[in-house]
């Protein structure tokens, strides 16, 4: 879907006018391009100690040029300017995992602040810190929780498509755990274009890094429901791009576009009403018999039947609950009952910011989507013993056929109500899901990753 406003204010006289009038200035976001380097410039790593060194060597392994001293960078970028403008930072990685007291934040945070003006368009700021817990000393908990407010505020100050996100380490997880590196790489890359102001929590040292960063899902078999169009078709295409064999599922009535998606990505089409009692078994049977296994299930199928609660009828309420959450519960039950869906299994459900912040007219939808968040938390615990994970992804305003039907003025406002001042693309949701589906995310489970450009509502 085109966003004419973003195109208009991204260059030429449109940019100048928007700047002078103080209008929102969204820019086209940096998205995944296999030919492009991981970052548009060097990464400034602020921090010290063993964990910092671990991340520095990982960054250098990914071909990133690492700078350690914010002052020195500011100096060198001025001297390196030979007519082509100063060299700009692709990212700032802010190591805050050692903070013991809120006072400890000042040094590294203010150093990062000095470097913010050197950020390139669509650069990244990533904090790495420990998750606050009730076991922490009060001062430690305060310092760790402080990172939350700091990062979310910093993300709102960034401009020109730059984003700020954080990696949270649970107690006992070291900075070189596969999912810490996996999360860091995802957040630095173009794959996280529309993820802003969010934290990824690494709970365990589980998971492993891919042999080929461009094909992290090689050899995996994935099922995507609601894959005939919109976000679902984008998820299917992205999983296939990353190497997975994909089974695309949608209701029989959507079969024509479903077949097109299957043929485009060399997958197989399974026409299926997911609310039928045998849906889970049929999915499992298809994946096992045709593709010899099942590793990844993406619950994307969903419907809306909006009405104010005062006007809500049973049919609207029931159909939304049946498709958006009851079907997922039933399918997961069948999957968990099978010993063929186990080692390293991934369940990823599409939730919604409506399920986090609530939305007028969507009591049924928000109940189902909040239900998804509760479900993955509980399912994560059940999958943990077999090395599997369950997570949710909550999209904000995404440019789809569905949102294109929103009246113009409402849509324009909805688009701009986030730090990136634009709607996301289906691809952005798909990238987050593909990351959570990968082996590199094996230590991340039970959480919700918002893909909303840091929408003003909710967390």
């Amino acid at each position: 879907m085109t966003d004419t406003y973003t195109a208009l204010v991204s260059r030429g006289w449109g940019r100048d006018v928007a700047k002078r009038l103080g209008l929102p200035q969204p820019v086209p976001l940096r998205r995944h391009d296999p030919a492009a380097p991981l970052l548009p410039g060097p990464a400034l790593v602020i921090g010290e100690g063993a964990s910092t060194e671990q991340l520095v060597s990982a960054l250098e392994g990914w071909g990133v040029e690492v700078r350690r001293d914010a002052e020195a960078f500011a100096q060198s970028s001025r001297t390196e300017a030979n007519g082509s403008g100063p060299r700009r930072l692709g990212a700032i990685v802010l190591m805050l995992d050692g903070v013991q007291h809120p006072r400890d934040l000042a040094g590294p945070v203010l150093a990062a602040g000095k470097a913010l003006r050197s950020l390139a368009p669509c650069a990244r700021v990533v904090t790495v810190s420990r998750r606050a817990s009730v076991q922490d000393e009060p001062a430690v908990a305060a310092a760790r929780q402080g990172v939350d407010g700091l990062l979310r505020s910093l993300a709102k100050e960034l401009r020109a498509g730059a984003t700020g996100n954080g990696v949270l380490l649970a107690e006992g997880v070291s900075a070189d755990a596969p999912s810490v590196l996996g999360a860091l790489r995802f957040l630095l890359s173009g794959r996280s274009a529309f993820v802003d102001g969010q934290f990824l929590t690494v709970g365990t040292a589980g998971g492993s890094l891919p042999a080929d960063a461009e094909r992290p899902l090689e050899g995996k078999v994935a099922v995507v429901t609601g894959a005939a169009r919109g976000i679902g078709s984008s998820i299917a295409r992205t999983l296939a791009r990353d190497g997975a064999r994909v089974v695309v599922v949608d209701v029989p009535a959507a079969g024509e576009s479903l077949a097109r998606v299957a043929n485009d990505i060399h997958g197989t089409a399974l026409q299926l009403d997911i609310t039928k009692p045998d849906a889970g078994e049929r999915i499992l049977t298809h994946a096992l018999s045709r593709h010899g296994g099942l590793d990844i299930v993406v619950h994307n199928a969903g419907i809306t039947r909006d009405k104010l609660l005062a006007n809500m009828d049973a049919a609207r309420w029931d159909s939304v609950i049946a498709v958006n959450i009851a079907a997922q519960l039933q399918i997961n039950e069948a999957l968990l009952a099978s010993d063929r869906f186990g080692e390293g299994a991934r369940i990823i459900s599409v939730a919604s910011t409506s399920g986090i912040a609530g939305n007028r007219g969507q009591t049924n939808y928000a109940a189902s989507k909040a239900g998804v968040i509760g479900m993955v938390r509980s399912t994560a615990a059940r999958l943990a013993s077999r090395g599997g994970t369950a997570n949710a992804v909550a999209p904000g305003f995404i440019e789809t056929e569905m949102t294109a039907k929103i009246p113009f003025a409402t849509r324009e406002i909805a688009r701009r109500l986030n730090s990136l001042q634009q709607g996301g693309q289906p691809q952005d949701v798909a990238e987050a899901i593909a990351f959570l589906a990968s082996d590199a995310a094996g230590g991340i489970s039970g959480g919700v990753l918002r893909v909303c450009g840091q929408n003003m509502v909710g967390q």
Partner: protein
Amino acid sequence: MSTLRKAVVVGGNRIPFARANGAYAMTSNLDMLTAALDGLVARFGLQDERLGEVAGGAVLKHSRDFNLTREAVLGSALSPETPAYDLQQACATGLEAILGLSDKIKLGRIDSAIAGGVDSASDAPIVVSEGLRHAVLELNRAKTLQQKLKAVSKLRPKDVTPVAPGTNEPRTGLSMGEHQALTTAQWNISREAQDELALASHRNLAEAYDRGFFDDLVTPYRGVTRDGNMRADTSLEKLASLRTVFGRQLGDRATMTAGNSTPLTDGASAVLLSSEDWAESHDLPILADIVDGEAAAVDFVHGKDGLLMAPVFAVARLLGRLGLTFEDIDYFEIHEAFAGTVLCHLAAWEDEEFCRERLGLDGALGKVDRAKLNVNGSSLAAGHPFAATGGRIVATLAKQLHERGTVDGRPARGLVSVCAAGGLGVAAVLEAR
């Protein structure tokens, strides 16, 4: 036969059938056949696969579609290195394609194949008159101005009128419906019996859709999700209220209506066939074996048999060759060109004299248990895009057989018969896997 390997049905796909001049009015045979192939490719993950052969055809065919099936393959997601050919045997086109390709698989000449069929009664070819055609051809041959003038002078105003397509029998001038009306009357088939058969067809088809039976047999097309001709809510009263459309010269004995005859229909189907090894090495299911088939023809021109009675002979000869009786058949798929056609076939097989004298049997071939007849609906409900019907029936039957599995310790068995213009009929036997 023991030296031959087996040919199996892996699965099928069709687009929902639509009544002529309806949802697919602006859609060509090539478009529909390509869509049927693409749906099959998507279901079984055959993208860029080089298959042994694709064969198919259409009954109503434009001259530009001389290589229809090959063009559909080129337009599909299959490997462009998949060979293809057209064939045509009127309404038996689809079934004959399946039998021919199965034989090639059994012989080991190919390992995999798709049998297809398509027809559009909406986008039918319209041709110029014979007079105009002869004049234009003669003009083309003419060398001198005098010869050219002579060719043109033969044209008459009436020659300019285009000729609409017809399916009337060339040798009798009668439409298929008029032919069947005579046969229906000859076998004393009642209006009520025909309406009951039509009702069962609609109910069975609707019930099969409702239980999701067609989820992996049909891929929606152009917004159509179920067969447009299906009337799930029809009743004997509604069917009885329709006026007769064929055999009206018979007066009170006219019984055939739009309700118990198939309408002109647009649609396409495709069936994936292969050897057992090919299916297994591609991790694909095996639904049924194509056991054997038989074609027959009758002399309807001289009135010896009704136009659509050839399946009566094909079935008798096929069962005789296989040493089977009706007791050995668990599903009968008898194409419902008209309800009267099916009922005449059943009557003939129950008629001792006919079976003795015409089929050379000791007595009646037997009675078909109605509970085993067209259990998932047939052409009266689904419609009948001529060349696509064989593929619809075989895919539906193969899935039904596979679901049933075994009967009394032997594989469930199904019999298919399809009648066709020109006094043709083709029958086949399938067994569950």
